[in-house]
């Protein structure tokens, strides 16, 4: 229903912020963002408006959440094995 892409705030000028999306910069409006935004924050863009300020540590928390969900379903062991298989494959790829 909407393409929210996270970007990093480079500068703020009143109700407008310059945000960097992996090398592409765009002006976003701050009318509806849920918290005060400062330079260096991550925000979610939707149709030119920042709709959410993403707390920096949320990325790690989301990964922890995935592990926790996997843990509950007893698949954690497989994941560990999968991760190990992933590392080996990656190493072979680099030779």
């Amino acid at each position, binding site marked *: *229903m*909407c*393409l929210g*892409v996270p970007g990093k705030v480079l500068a703020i000028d009143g109700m407008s912020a310059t945000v960097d*999306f*992996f*090398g*592409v*910069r*765009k*002006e976003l409006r701050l009318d509806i963002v849920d918290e005060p935004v400062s330079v260096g924050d991550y925000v979610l*863009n*939707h*149709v030119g408006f920042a709709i959410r300020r993403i707390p920096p540590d949320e990325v790690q928390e989301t990964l922890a959440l995935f592990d926790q969900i996997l843990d509950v379903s007893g698949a954690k062991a497989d994941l560990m094995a999968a991760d190990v298989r992933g590392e080996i494959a990656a190493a072979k790829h680099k030779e």
Partner: protein
Amino acid sequence: MEKPQAKIGLKHGSGGRAMRQLIEDVFLTLASPVDGIGLSALDDGAAIRVGDRWLVVTTDSHVVHPIFFPGGDIGRLSVSGTVNDLAMMGATEPLGLTCAVVLEEGFPRADLERVVASMRETAREANAPIVTGDTKVMGKGEVDGIVLNTTGVALADRVVSDAGLRAGDLVIVTGTIGDHGMAIMSRRHDLRLEGDLRSDVAPLNGLVREALRAGGEDVVAMKDPTRGGVAGVLHEMAAKGKVGIVIDETALPVRDEVRAAGEMIGIDPLLVANEGKAVIGVRARSADKVLAALRAHPLGASAIVIATAIGERPGAVILDTGFGKRMLAEPEGELLPRIC
């Protein structure tokens, strides 16, 4: 109130299914048998037998808007476009190009001189002499600034069509995809995206010459992914070669800026136009040789194998995303920024 289909829409000119339908329904009635590749092949150009060689001919009209854009302009685009269409047929030494222009009354002379300077420079880069032309002017508002048509002719010993793929062949793209279309789109739809989004427009005859020298007969299909992007070309190659094509999405070379802009406006770089890239089908045994030759050339530095032809599902293009596989739809019409 007649059915809307009675009018030509923008979709009929954007390289997708609607355009192909219009050509098949209306223009193919012009086709007549020719000794070689004619209109009905719907290839990048025509190839007519002359003695024991082929006369390759191609023509293109350019109506890009804006006419000056990051990385290029309509002048460089017009020469490169025709040189590249000839090269995709295997004709990498153009004998001559034409340049027919239609100008709007009031078009700034300084802009015209800038466009022509860019044509001159690109023609020199491609070693393609411009030998004749035509100039028309229309009243204010009767045409949008400038329309530029270029035609190219060349002789070739062997013609490479876009129908030569067989099961087991590999498909190479000569560099990052989506650069040109994303640069134009970010300007045209006033998306106000700043950043390194610039067109890749460039003549490819030198690059293709290296690929043909390395791969010879094992280079079996070539096409430049302009309107309709790489997806459009792969659909054509799959249909004409009567093979399925499986794309390895994780191998697709996409610049960060193009990927980011694509994610923001909901457009897949596979569908976006390129003006300095080629899609090359090659027998598996020669893929490494051709890749090495491409990568040794400045315009082919990030060339890579992106897909494999398979015997199953002829005409289908399948995307292996790294998570699962899905059918890749044929580009529809004009690409528009999306919100949903």
